[in-house]
């Protein structure tokens, strides 16, 4: 129960030697910043920031309980206005990703609730939500078979690939693709895309996302090491 378990970790930027412009914005993560949730994390990517809180495993309503595994619930709140259909669809995507990695069978007839609050949105919101969710689940001690991360790519009209696009780049892009990748083999857990792209471009984006996810996983590892080291 350390109160100094708040770690402000730093930045991971790197450019892959093959494709120019494949660099992520600087990111930062802070864990255990809220006192009420079992686990909480704030993930910052450039100017995009998402706060995630996890409650679980906890009591579940009889109508929602599943006899052999935990019931996962994801709630995403936008900053302005009431949540709408877009939030519901994002919640569904995040829930599907979490259900693939969380070992729900260890906690049957319980509920794990993940609440996300958008603090600021400057592009790549879905990827930031996924990263914040993963860090919060780790902070809460929910058993998982792998960590996961989100990476967003944007394809503009000439076919140039941009990783971790800003809001302006997303608006002008021809297609925006978000992937959730797992930490063990960089397998694809979830993908959501918007716009026109060819099969070859999809493979190219996926390969770039897999390369970028290595940086994110390295960042996770460093931030957790720093948090739990005795120095």
């Amino acid at each position, binding site marked *: 129960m350390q109160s100094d378990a708040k770690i402000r970790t730093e930045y991971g930027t790197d450019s892959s030697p093959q494709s120019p412009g494949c660099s992520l914005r600087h990111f930062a993560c802070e864990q255990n910043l*809220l*006192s*009420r*949730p079992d686990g*909480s994390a704030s993930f910052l990517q450039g*100017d995009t*920031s998402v*706060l995630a*809180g996890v*409650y679980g495993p*906890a*009591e579940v309503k009889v109508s929602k309980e599943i006899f052999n595994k935990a019931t996962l619930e994801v*709630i995403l*709140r936008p*900053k*302005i*206005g009431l949540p709408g259909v877009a939030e519901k669809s994002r919640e569904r995507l995040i829930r599907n990703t979490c259900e693939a990695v969380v070992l729900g069978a260890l906690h049957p007839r319980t*509920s794990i*609730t993940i*609440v996300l*609050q958008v*603090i*600021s949105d*400057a592009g790549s919101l879905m990827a930031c939500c996924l990263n914040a969710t993963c860090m919060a689940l780790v902070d809460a001690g929910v058993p998982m078979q792998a960590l996961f991360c989100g990476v967003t790519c944007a394809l503009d009209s000439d076919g140039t690939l941009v990783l971790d696009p800003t809001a302006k780049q997303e608006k002008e892009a021809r297609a925006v693709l978000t992937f959730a990748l797992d930490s063990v083999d960089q397998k694809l857990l979830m993908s959501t895309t918007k716009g026109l792209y060819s099969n070859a471009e999809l493979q190219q984006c996926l390969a770039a996302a897999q390369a970028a996810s290595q940086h994110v996983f390295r960042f996770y590892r460093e931030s957790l090491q720093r948090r739990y080291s005795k120095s």
Partner: protein
Amino acid sequence: MKETPLSNCERRFLLRAIEERKRLDGRQTYDYRNIKISFGTDYGCCIVELGKTRVLGQVSCELVSPKLNRATEGILFFNLELSQMAAPAFEPGRQSDLLVKLNRLLERCLRNSKCIDTESLCVVAGEKVWQIRVDLHLLNHDGNIIDAASIAAIVALCHFRRPDVSVQGDEVTLYTPEERDPVPLSIHHMPICVSFAFFQQGTFLLVDPSEREERVMDGLLVIAVNKHREICTIQSSGFEMQ
């Protein structure tokens, strides 16, 4: 999720400590917890931390038609949301009483005290006025939501800049932030709510109750005051005032 019930021994301990003028976190009767205010990258975004209670505030604006009976005034809209992150008991269907009470108090404190000049929000009388929307999200509940929310609301309103607009005859031009610098809202004064919790039928009083203290209190008195020592709103609940 159901609220974890407060055990009797914890309740007795808290009340005994208050009778001996001691608080769990070592504060005195009139001490406030540390307040930390941080701003986001957008105009009108702020996060207020009152001890461990955390509130996110965001102000946004939109051009709309005015209300029929107030054709020359802008519209102010406040929305406080108790996020499920703040406490496990804040489920969407279950918090209506507390939510209505807090929202109503915030509205009375900020709208009825006329701290924002709504006449300056008018663009074309009877046709286009600014609607200022303040969204507050409670992120962590450690007591005294109303104080933190009122601070977040007024700070976000002071930080906010609305797009500049010019009217020439019948033509209304809305400038983007790149064309012309956005304009701040005109704020007359800044009302802040202060909460007093009462215990043992009004014998003992504490300022800025924490979450545990709120659970054992008998009554709550909220007074909204501004810098010029004017009282903007008073609300008392839970006990008889002598």
